């Protein structure tokens, strides 16, 4: 499918101006009132088209998980809209939300804490079916067995407990749980970060196979850029709660525009001793999202920082075809 064709159709998920602020309470707790806000996600917009994979990269604490969780309404957004079809997920009531949740599933980063240690795998996988009242007991078991087979688990795993599995196997279970209700969109929050190198590739391949088979749409969150590059059609780069650059994968790697993206790409160690490349070493630490810098959030570490960067936040522009960036370097020639 060509990108143009994709563009012309209506997106499956359309997120506009998503904001999520966490209130920080003073030492007096609820009595003292709100002291300030952690601006975990600050005005993020993107679209997700059926069948594509949007990768999100960014450093720890930049708001990737919060974004994913907010879209699923696991926490309530501070502002913004998220259209799934014609419906704004953020406006849905309990019943309607439940219906939508069948279509949007999540795979979590930590394969160890995302499975209830006291439930057998069978129970864990049947739970979503029970919640959505799909099928009777027999059908559920069959469906689960089928799904287990799909993700490469054996029959006898059905009765085992999570602790009897390795991380890779658990991540397969997590995947099976997400897929057992036949979702449209799967939000995977760093599904391979906790895994060993040799297992990581197994899961990535599996994700891709399943995507092809079920025509899934992925929102793939990770901090490992090479993984994101491998799996994504488009990539969004986040920094301190904002999406600083968004572009099709090839375009991003061929021509990273935002200085942060450039630094990020150059910082990734390349497993090839022959190819010593020039690294951009950023100065300083990532600022706290509790009081992000004024103006452009990146100006404190930016090698190209200009005066305007300190005062004015850059707006998003389309620098090349479908290549969005928020940086004064491109707005003020």
């Amino acid at each position, binding site marked *: 499918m060509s990108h143009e064709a994709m563009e012309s159709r209506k997106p499956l998920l359309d997120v506009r101006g998503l904001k999520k602020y966490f209130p920080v309470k*003073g*030492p*007096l*707790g609820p*009595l*003292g009132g709100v002291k300030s806000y952690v601006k975990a996600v600050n005005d993020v917009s993107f679209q997700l088209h059926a069948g594509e994979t949007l990768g999100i990269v960014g450093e720890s604490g930049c708001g990737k998980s919060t974004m994913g969780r907010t879209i699923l309404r696991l926490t309530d957004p501070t502002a913004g809209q998220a259209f799934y079809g014609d419906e704004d997920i953020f406006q849905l009531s309990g019943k309607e939300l439940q219906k939508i949740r069948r279509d949007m599933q999540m795979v979590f980063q930590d394969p160890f804490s995302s499975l209830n240690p006291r439930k057998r795998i069978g129970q864990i996988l049947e739970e979503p079916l029970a919640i959505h009242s799909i099928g009777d007991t027999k059908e559920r078991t069959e469906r689960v067995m089928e799904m287990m087979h799909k993700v490469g688990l054996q029959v006898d795993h059905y009765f085992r407990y999570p602790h009897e599995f390795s991380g890779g196997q658990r991540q397969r279970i997590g995947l099976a749980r997400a897929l057992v209700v036949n979702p449209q969109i799967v939000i995977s929050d760093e599904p391979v970060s906790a895994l060993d190198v040799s297992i990581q590739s197994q899961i990535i391949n599996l994700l891709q196979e399943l995507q092809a088979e079920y025509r899934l749409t992925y929102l793939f969150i990770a901090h490992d850029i090479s993984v994101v590059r491998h799996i994504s059609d488009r990539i969004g780069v986040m920094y301190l709660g904002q999406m600083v650059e968004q572009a099709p994968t090839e375009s991003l790697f061929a021509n990273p525009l935002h200085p942060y993206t450039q630094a990020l790409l150059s910082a990734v160690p390349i497993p090839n001793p022959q190819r010593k490349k020039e690294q951009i070493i950023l100065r300083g630490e990532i600022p706290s999202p509790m009081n992000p810098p004024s103006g452009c959030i990146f100006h404190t570490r930016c090698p190209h920082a200009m005066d305007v960067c300190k005062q004015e936040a850059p707006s998003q522009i389309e620098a090349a075809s479908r290549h969005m960036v928020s940086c004064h370097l491109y707005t003020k020639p």
Partner: protein
Amino acid sequence: MNLYLVKRILALIPVLFVVSVVIFLIIHITPGDPASVILGESATAQDVEALRQQLGLDLPMYQQYMNWILDVLRGDLGESYFMKESVSEAIFSHLQPTLSLAILAQIIALLIAIPLGITAALRRGTAADQTVMGFSLLGMAIPSFLLALFLILLVGVKLQWLPVAGYKPLEAGLWTHLKYLILPAVSLGAIQSALITRMTRSSMLEVLNMNYMKAARSKGVKDRQLIYKHALRNAFLPILTVIGQTFGGLVTGAVVTETIFNIPGIGQLIINSVERRDYEVIQGVVLFVTCAYVFINLIVDILYGVIDPRVRLERK
């Protein structure tokens, strides 16, 4: 930190309110009242009723509560029905024995428990560890009144080393004072010591497994310093918590211990006041004990901050 303190103190208000209501209710729905106790064995019901009226015990319950709590808020805990003292005086005069007893028990407990706990942790799995743990289990299993009885029989009556009962204030001389307190303190401190030993051991074990212990060793820190400087300070936090929490147990234990050893402390005051239905005293003392408990835990919290810098800053 200051704000944190303020918060802690504010949080006490509901706790104390709950305590005051619970105690007031329980005490007042209990049969028997101070009037009949004052009047003695063969008083008639009419006499009792008359005195009840004079003492204001015939008012509706909520009114009695309001009267009491308003007085308390004004700092007046009331008058004993029974003793020629105000409740605060009664508490004050009964406080010293309990304080001495509790402090001595705590000192004995700590002196025994912390070295034992450290030893057990360092020699985990050895016979020494098992012996220490065995004793500490025994210490937790033996009811303090049984221990007290055995101690009285053995040390007091058979060997006559120490007096079996009674109390001498500090003014009577330090040794005299201590002489009377050793047995009760031991029987009261036993369970304390058992608990602290276990806590010391497990928290030491936990700390010994921490990465920073390995890191310290990788710097070439010597064994003694490793244990007493690096480990103990970290391990002390949970121990401190246990000490704070078992303070409640200390008062509870004191109720029994003071009865057996006839020590005129808070515990005995409570028991006696319950027996006499001396409402004001019971309420006052329980409120006081609760405050003390909460206060001690507040101090523990503050000590936490002294020991662990992470606590000094505002918490999340």
